[in-house]
């Protein structure tokens, strides 16, 4: 394998080939994939139903959207004219596959109606970091050349090394391809994945004192405008009525006062414990560039350490928050001395 540029070409061609095949064999009715975005530093989702449109599909390192979101239950299931459920093909990087499997575990989608086009993801660009470094200048074009990211504007051109400007979660990602469950995956898939993780990337933060942690969290989260982009893009946030939108009772205020922002992010994290698949979409879409990856990663660690569970790897294991055991660890409970 060569550089990122040629890898992208390869992956793109594989997607096109598999998609064409699936449509030709009538194995799927519609394919959800990525196409060129309308603004620089983005890729748009695309729904393809005809074989001749397959060439619109592509793979670049900006496919940060988790396509599983388009199958989450708040979006109506796709039906054909006779009222039959459509079979859906979906371009799946590792985290999309994990999200689909976890949604199937939660009985929100039927994995039998889904065909994953498995690819071996080579990482997503941390677009927020690039935007931050470019500052107020306007980005007109972005391309990958060799192992570098080239960002062009009206009178500037900057180069960023890809390895460094990759999404933090992608740097430590162990599931590059979707796990194969019930033969729902074609292309590159993982069979019975077992992943080992040392979580060294968050040990720096964990070793801080609680005052330092609070200061950091306060500093990072206080720019939140409560636009809920993170919630909308999350494949696991499919509640019909989110707790922050509830007004009977009003659990938490809707202001951008820090207490309310904290309540939103803290409770959202609680809801995602044991469910988050670490796709990093929430950080990628945040208009304020808040780094939610840290929380995501911690959630993964808590669930792994406490209940030895990683979401979205197989269909049989019951997620920790959906079950219980008499012998759970309870070292945190208050005891008499």
């Amino acid at each position: 394998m060569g550089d990122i540029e040629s890898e992208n070409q390869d992956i793109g061609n594989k997607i096109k080939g598999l998609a064409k095949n699936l449509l030709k064999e009538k194995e799927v009715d519609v394919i959800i994939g990525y196409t060129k975005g309308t603004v620089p530093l983005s890729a748009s989702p695309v729904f393809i139903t005809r074989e001749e449109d397959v060439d619109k599909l592509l793979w670049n390192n900006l496919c940060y959207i988790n396509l599983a979101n388009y199958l989450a239950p708040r979006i109506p299931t796709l039906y054909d004219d006779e009222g039959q459920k459509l079979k859906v093909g979906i371009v799946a990087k590792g985290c999309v596959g994990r999200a689909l499997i976890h949604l199937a575990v939660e009985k929100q989608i039927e994995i039998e109606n889904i065909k994953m086009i498995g690819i071996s993801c080579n990482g997503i660009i941390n677009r927020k970091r690039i935007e931050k470094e470019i500052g107020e200048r306007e980005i007109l074009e972005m391309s990958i050349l060799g192992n570098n990211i080239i960002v062009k504007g009206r009178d500037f051109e900057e180069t960023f090394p890809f390895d460094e400007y990759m999404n933090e979660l992608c740097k430590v990602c162990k599931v590059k391809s979707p796990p194969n469950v019930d033969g729902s995956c074609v292309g590159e898939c993982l069979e019975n994945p077992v992943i080992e993780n040392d979580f060294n990337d968050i040990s720096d933060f964990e070793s801080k004192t609680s005052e330092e942690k609070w200061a950091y969290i306060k500093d990072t989260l206080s720019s939140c405008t409560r636009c809920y982009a993170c919630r909308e893009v999350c494949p696991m946030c499919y509640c019909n009525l989110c707790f922050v939108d509830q007004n009977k009772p009003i659990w938490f205020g809707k202001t951008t006062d820090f207490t309310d922002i904290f309540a939103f992010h803290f409770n959202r994290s609680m809801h995602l414990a044991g469910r988050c698949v670490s796709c990093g979409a929430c950080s990628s879409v945040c208009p304020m560039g808040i780094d939610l990856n840290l929380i995501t990663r911690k959630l993964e660690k808590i669930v792994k350490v406490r209940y030895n569970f990683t979401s979205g790897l197989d269909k049989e294991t019951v997620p920790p928050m959906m079950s219980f055991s008499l012998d759970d660890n309870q070292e945190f409970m208050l005891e008499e001395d």
Partner: protein
Amino acid sequence: MNENTSETEQLKNNDDEWEPKILAFLCNWCSYAGADLAGVSRIQYPPNIRVVRVPCSGRINPYFIVKALIDGWDGVLVSGCHPGDCHYLTGNLVARRRFGILKDLLEFFGIEPDRVNFMWASAAEGERFAVLVRKTTKLVRKLGPNKKFEKKW
């Protein structure tokens, strides 16, 4: 208005006067009865807890705890039946999973985990209830007033 603020400020700043306020969620079947027994047996324990009776510790939603902290309570205590003794068979086991994650997350977000405490106490354990309430009060008192959440408007 100003007078009021300065008064509350004064109260908050005066360490001698400050007493921790702890919101205690007690399950109807064990801990509430345990607290009752402690009372009937005339066992002394600090008056810092304010009790909310809930049907089961499994009823405790993390919202309750976060909201209590945001509303300015210095500490939260949740008490239920011992594992295996739940009136609804498994309510406290479900709750325990939530509490573990909640406690880890609180610590990660930089809130002192000692502010939120969980315990088991059966209806026959008046003495244990009193001991653990004393312990909670001590832990929270050591942390001082909960000043992290002050709503500006």
